[in-house]
């Protein structure tokens, strides 16, 4: 089964962790994740600058590791990201900001990527809210 995952919640929301555990379980079950699309406050999950307390789960790090290891297509909505100060090196230069905070394995792209993923996948699973 091909899954597309859309996440709307920031790293500190339980739904971000739920999405992560769902993706891990789907991959462990032999399913395919055609794309992860981070929208709205979920763009913070892709930030390199998030620092988690030592006794808490580091959700952004877990996402990053998962996308790297499984070579997933991790897409962050560019409009949602820029307005929240999530920029890659290219955007930081374009808007004359001092530094970027979005690195590989994440890609900045548009909402069309969510639409395309929904068309490609058998199921679109959305995670958001609490």
């Amino acid at each position, binding site marked *: 089964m091909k899954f597309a995952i859309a996440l709307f919640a920031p790293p500190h929301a339980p739904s971000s962790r*739920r999405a992560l*555990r*769902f993706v891990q*379980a*789907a991959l462990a079950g032999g399913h395919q994740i055609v794309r992860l699309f981070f929208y709205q406050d979920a763009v913070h999950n892709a930030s390199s600058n998030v620092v988690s307390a030592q006794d808490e789960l580091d959700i952004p790090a877990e996402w990053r590791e998962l996308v790297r290891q499984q070579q997933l297509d991790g897409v962050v909505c560019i409009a949602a990201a820029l307005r929240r100060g999530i920029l890659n090196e290219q955007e930081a230069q374009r808007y004359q900001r001092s530094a970027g905070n979005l690195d590989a394995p994440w890609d900045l792209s548009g909402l069309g990527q969510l639409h395309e993923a929904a068309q490609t996948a058998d*199921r679109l699973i959305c995670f958001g*809210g*609490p």
Partner: protein
Amino acid sequence: MATLHVLSHSPFSDGRLSSCLRLLGPADGLLLCGDAVYALQPGTAQRQALELMPAAIGLFALDEDLCARALAAPARVQVVDYPGFVELSCRFDKVNSWL
């Protein structure tokens, strides 16, 4: 098309659960996760409403969210883990999250 509805908001803070129960089709399912598992709190109207749902409607709750809140699911509700959540997503034609 059979749809799995996924709720994560507490049923004591908004009307998502009651709206969802009204909308459920005959072959649909409902998965409670996060604070939505509070709908299974004994002695509440929410739990009673769930127990009165027709038998054809599958009712599910995410195990870790029940454990985190020290809640036990009644026999009517099937407890699932994450692999079970994935399996439900395959079993139903669509998954609708109440964001």
